[in-house]
Each structure stands twice: as C-alpha cells, then as structure tokens.
C-alpha cells in the first residue's frame, strides 16, 4: 500500500436528504434531492460530471440492480455509471472507486450517490436476497452482531449497561441534527428497559430501517480551486474483505472485525496517520448496533482490544470528548439506508471539517475518519479526509 492517492482527490460538494420514514419520497426523489444538493454545493451543473458511481444495495424497483436507476433519476445519459454493492459498506466503496478513477486521471469530476428506499419494500428489516436457502436460516442482522457481542462480553466482561452508553451518546448527537431519523434524547434507563431484539441488543441498541440518500461530487485535487475554496481532500482510503461466513471460520474470535483493522491500517498508512487517537479529530463509524461502535474503537486502533467500554465510559467519544465519534448521531440515530450510509458519513465529515455542523460542530476539525462496515463484519471501508 502506497501513499499514491493522498491529496490527489478533492470533495467539492456534498448533499444529503433528511433520513427517516420518507413515505412521501420514492427512490428517484431521494436520489435527485441528494445529487442536486451536491451539485449546488459544488457549484456545478449536472452535465459537468464525467462519470458517476451508484451505491445501492436494493436499487429502485423496476430497474433491476443495474446503474440505470441513477441514470433515469438524474436523466444523466451517455456517461459511464457503475453500480457498486458491498453489503452495508456499499456507499464508501462507491466513493472509493470514484476516487481511484479520478486519481488515475480518467475523469476530472465524478458523482457518487448512495441511496436506499427501504420502506417501499413489502417486508420489514433488511434485504436477505442472495442467501443460501438453508445454511444461515434464522440469522438476522441484529443476530449476527449479537452473537459477536455475547462472545465479546464472555471474554472481556461488560454487558447491556455499556451498550446503553453508546445509545445515549448517539441519540444525544442525533437530537442536534435536523436531518437525523431520530432527533430525541434517550436515557440509560429507557435503553435498558426497551424490549429485546436479539440478546444483548434491545430496541435502542439497533439502528432503524431508514429511507435516505446522500451524494458527493469529487474532482482532481489540482482542479478543486476552479470550483471554490471550501473543498476537502481525500487523505487515505482502505478496503478489506474477510469471510462472509465467519460463523464457519474456526479462527474467527468473534470479539471484533479483522476487516476493520486491515482497512484502517491501509487508510492510515496512505494518510500518514501514525497515532490515530491523537491525530484524528472526529470519526463517523459504523454503529449498526451499539456493540459495533465499541469494537470499532478497538479495531480502528483508538484503544486496545477489550477497552472499548472505557473509551465510551470516560466520555472520550462524546461530542465534548477528545475524539468525538458519530457527531451526526450515527447509524443509531441518523438512520441506516444501506447504500446511503457510507456517503452520508462522508457528508457529515466534510461538513464538520468545513466547520459547518452547527450545534453538533466539533471544536477541532482538521482530520476526520469515515468507517463503514458490511455484512457480518466482512467488508470494511475506511476513509481519512482532511482540510487542505
């Protein structure tokens, strides 16, 4: 892994819809709202885009799974568009592919859109298509992470009280965010009393099923000033894929995600980050469940394995802490439209690094981290963004 991409790509525009139960918006409405917001932010017309990447797990009904759902929504025809899907790390991987193409000089300006319209589907929860007919029957998204949480607590101690602290923090941050799915505070007692979804996760330990879209416009870094001065640079990128069936891997310890460790090492190396907890000012991490945020602290190298409880307990990841994590409210409170989440994290970090995050603005904002996790912790994408 080299530093090849460091400072080669700039984010010049971001956009994001309100996340939530967007019953009055269809898939195309979400895509258009996010993309047009990003175009306006970049101060470009849609035609200025040379290529586009779509991150969507279950694209618009009637369009199959191909990239046409982005072309038709934006009427963006005759240009290269690629759909990317990598479980819940779809959005960041779409961004990563766009960034590599721009850094390679293939395109000057590229659009990345992450979008998901989950509430149009007739079934609850996340999509399960592509599964083996028998081998994982009974396994749900919370179940996958709950099995890891139980093993983690078996090994390191701790329990629901620790998890509740993550929910309380992220709901607090979400309460300051007008685009978040949930904009309400919750108390530790409320979290602990909630009905169990998959032990040890109660309702407030789980991210919701959410509609939403987010978009980013990127360009070659040396061209960024042609658009405006308020751009953000891509410092590092990492993607790592491990087994999609860790439950069959006798080496998998079930106390964290090697994919996150590998992806963050790649991104840190590219960005020249030697001590992440000291150098990074804020992080948007994949808190699909409260326990996932705990293990993320550890797997991202912010604290040693087994010490996540201390990291949240001491308030270090709070908005007022030395490394605020999920100032947006996270998946927990902002919501988790699968393909949109990764791009939404980029939207949040760019907004924070520009100092435009309002009530949830973190005080120091030079270097930000995005961490997106997919499947049973099998796909991790880490992006380091920095102010120029």
């Amino acid at each position: 892994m080299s530093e090849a991409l460091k400072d080669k790509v700039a984010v010049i525009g971001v956009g994001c819809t309100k996340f939530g139960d967007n019953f009055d918006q269809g898939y195309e409405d979400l895509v258009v709202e996010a993309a047009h917001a990003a175009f306006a932010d970049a101060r470009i017309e849609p035609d200025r885009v040379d290529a586009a990447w779509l991150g969507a797990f279950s694209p618009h009904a009637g369009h199959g799974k191909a990239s046409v759902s982005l072309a038709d929504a934006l009427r963006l025809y005759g240009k290269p568009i690629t759909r990317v899907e990598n479980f819940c790390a779809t959005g960041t991987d779409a961004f990563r592919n766009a960034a590599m193409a721009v850094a390679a000089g293939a395109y000057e300006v590229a659009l990345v859109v992450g979008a998901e319209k989950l509430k149009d589907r007739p079934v609850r929860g996340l999509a399960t298509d592509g599964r083996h007919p028998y081998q994982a029957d009974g396994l749900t998204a919370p179940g996958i992470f709950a099995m890891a949480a139980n093993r983690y607590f078996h090994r390191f101690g701790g329990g629901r009280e620790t998890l509740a602290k993550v929910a309380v923090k992220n709901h607090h941050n979400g309460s300051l965010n007008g685009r978040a799915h949930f904009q309400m505070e919750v108390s530790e007692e409320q979290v602990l009393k909630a009905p169990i979804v998959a032990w040890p996760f109660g309702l407030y330990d789980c991210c919701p099923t959410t509609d939403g879209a987010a978009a980013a416009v990127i360009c070659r870094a040396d061209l960024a000033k042609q658009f405006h001065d308020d751009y953000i640079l891509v410092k590092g990128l990492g993607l790592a894929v491990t087994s999609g069936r860790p439950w069959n891997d006798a080496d998998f310890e079930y106390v964290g995600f090697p994919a996150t460790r590998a992806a963050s090492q790649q991104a840190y190396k590219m960005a020249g980050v030697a001590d992440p907890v000291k150098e990074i000012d804020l992080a948007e991490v994949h808190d699909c469940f409260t326990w996932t945020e705990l293990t993320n602290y550890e797997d991202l190298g912010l604290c040693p394995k087994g010490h996540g409880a201390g990291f949240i307990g001491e308030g270090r990841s709070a908005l007022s802490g030395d490394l605020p994590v999920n100032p947006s409210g996270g998946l927990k409170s902002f919501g988790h439209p699968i393909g949109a989440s990764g791009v939404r994290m980029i939207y949040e970090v760019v907004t924070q690094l520009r100092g435009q995050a309002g009530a949830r603005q973190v005080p120091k904002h030079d270097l930000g981290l995005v961490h997106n996790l997919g499947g049973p912790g099998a796909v991790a994408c880490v992006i380091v963004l920095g102010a120029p």
Partner: protein
Amino acid sequence: MIGITSYNCYIPRYRLSQAVIAQAWAGRPMPGCKAVYNFDEDSLTMGQAAAWRLLASAPPPEVLYFASTTAPYWQRSAASLMAASCDLPASVATADFGGSLRCGASALRAALDAVAAGRASRACVVAADAREGAPESAEELIFGDAAAALAVGSDGVIAELVGSASRSDDFLDEWRRDVDPHIHSFASKFSLTRGYQANVVEAARAVLEKAGLEARRIARAAFASPDGRAHAAAAKALSIPADRLEDSRLGDIGVTGAAMPLLLLAQALDRAAAGDFVLAVAYGEGADAFLFRVTDAIASLPRPVTQPGPPPIEYPSYTVYRKLREFLKTRAGGMEVSNVLWEREEPQNVRLHGTFCPRCGRLQFPMTRVCSGCRSAEGLVEKPLPRAGRVFTFTKDFLYDAPVQPTIMAVVDLEGGARFLCQLTDAAENEVTIDMEVELVLRRMRESASMHHYYWKARPRSTP
C-alpha cells in the same frame, strides 16, 4: 441366528400434561402427560433421530425401512431422505411402510425376512408417528409422538428371533382417509374385544404354539396398546403375569401409533436378561407377533439404551401446544431450492459432509475448494462431520419469524474442528450457555414452494 442386533428410540423433549388439556376444554383431568413433537419436528425427523442413534457408530445397513401413518409426503420417500441424512450409501435398499397402525411391525417382519432370506446381513427398521387427534377428542388425550429404531441382522444378535405370526383382519376399528386431518374410530368395547384383544391373543397364541412355548415362560411382553389398558386384558387372557407386561407409557409418552410396538420392544430389551423370552405384538387390521430369545450378547450393550435425554419441558398451555402443532401446516414461504442445488449440495446439506485438509488437519464446513486454514487447494478430501459439539457463541433473537420466541442462533464448534451455524432447538431459553454441549439434528424448517424443507439444528446433548 437372526434377530435384533441393536435398538434405540427418540422421544421428543416436550410434554403436554393432561391437566393442561383438561383446562382447555373445562374437562376433568386424567393424571400424567404425553410426549409431543416440537414445532420443527415430524415423523421423519423423529425417525431420523432414532435411526442416527442406532447407526452413528455402526456399519451401514443394507436395508432401511421406515414405517409411519404420518409420513410427511404421500409421494417422496421418507426412508430415502432418512438414509441420506444418516449418510448411508446409495446401495441401501429403502422402503416406506404405512397405511396401518401395524406398519412398524410389518417393516420389522420384512426386515427379518430379508435377513432370513440372505438378502441382507444388516437391516434397520425405523417407526415413527405424529398422529393428530381432533381437538377435544379422546384421541387428543392419548396420542403421543415418538420414534423407535431396531437393527436386525445375523451378526451380534442380542435377541434371536424364535418365531413370528401374522394375522390379517379387516376389522373396522380406527381409520383416516387420505383427505382427513384426524383419526376416526368406532371406539367401543366391541372394538377392544373383537378388534384388539382377539387379534393380539390369536397372533400371540400362534407364535407360542409354533415355538412350543408356554405363555408363562415369557419374561417380557411388549404389547402395543390402543388405550393403555386393553393390553393388560390381552396378557391376562394369555395367562402372562401382569409384572411381565411392559408399561404402555400412557402416563408419560402416550399411544405412539406405528412406533409403539417397536418402542415397547426396545423398553423390554432394556430390562431383559440373557435367556429371557420376549414377546412383542402389534395391532392394526390384524396383528403381528414376534417371539425373541435374548442372547448373552446383550451384555455388550450399555443399557438402558433408551436414554431419556435432557429433562422434559412441559408446554405452559394448550394454546401454545396448538399454535406449535399448526405452525408448519399453516405458515408457508421463506424458503426455495432448485433440485439442481439440492442435488449438488446434498453431500453437505443432507449428509453433513465437510472438507478435510490433510496438509493442516483442518475439518471445515461448508465444503470448500481452498482450505480456510492453510489456503491449500491441493489434496482436500470430503469427510463426514461429527454431529456433536459445543456452543461457541449464540444469541436469542426475537426478530426472526418463528412460532416460539426467541429463536436461538448458535455458532457450534463441532468435534474435529469444523464450525457450524444453526438454530438451537428443544432448549429452554435460560438453559443455553457458551460451551453448552449440543448435537446436530435434522429438523423441518419451513413449508415453502409446496415442499417441506429440512435442515440441521443443534439440540442439547442427550447422552453424556
């Protein structure tokens, strides 16, 4: 010498108490309870469990007969699926018996004949039933669910066949048409005397006569019983002392249909001593009687063979029982499989084979082309997985669509090193722990695309 070489049984873990049934119908309770299948069980899975206990550590039989009046398919051999899930070779001769309460005994007779004729040296007979009595009927009170399996052969005989007798009698007693969900019957004193008792006594007399044996020399008598009482009258008519008659288990298992004669025979063999004569009689449109003499080889079996397993769990209410009984009959969807995938993956999904890497010694599941341990792609071999292991981690999931919540999902470390993911069934919610010992059992998963779908689940280990 031909006869029984081994035996085992499977009793579901759940019980429905007579008090709970009586409460549902505002009736007067009888004492005791009956064994009832879990929502993911049927006669095939219960039979498979009994068969596997018998076959796990034995050379494969050349014949596998399955008998049931409640086989899950009218057309699709339960015996063949059972043979595959017990990992028997394709050369095994399978057959399905049904149509009469006596079909378990008919299968036993056919297996003994096959061995006697020299067509097979090892045969396995499995009988299981999961019969439905109509709500608030007498049958609902007494029908229990269970399976039994007998190994028959000419080597290592623990109970030598002395003789057998058969009677056919188209007596109108109990029936179920192809369109009926429940049993119909003329339940009456006439049914018991002219139907049950006359046939059992005649068949028993015939076999004793052929053997030249007086009834008083019978050490254990295993008579299937329609009501838990009539068998005593039959034994009395034969002058067999009451203390030699096997308890019908009406008070804790119930009347288990085609499985009952084999189950009671297994129970008799658990108690018999070398040299004992054991008489087993099955009833249904006639009767089959078998006379066995227990051999010295019985000492080689660790008895009782029919271990009770983990302590039974009582259903809290009749409503819960009814919901679970109906779940797979009424809830469809969620699973589909092509015959192409079914066929190609049969070794792993049905036979529970994994892949062994001779280079690093790792056994793994699902079957793989490249070793998950050393990444070697050379020399990997297909190998059966051990079906016992320990829970590595688990969760109790309230989100999954199941009739009982929570669904327990478990990652199981199987003996030999393979790691397996599955649901954990037959367990009380608070019983499950990391490191708990479990065994893999075949269970009915879903009704979907007009098929019953079977796959593996873990269950608390029943034998130490």
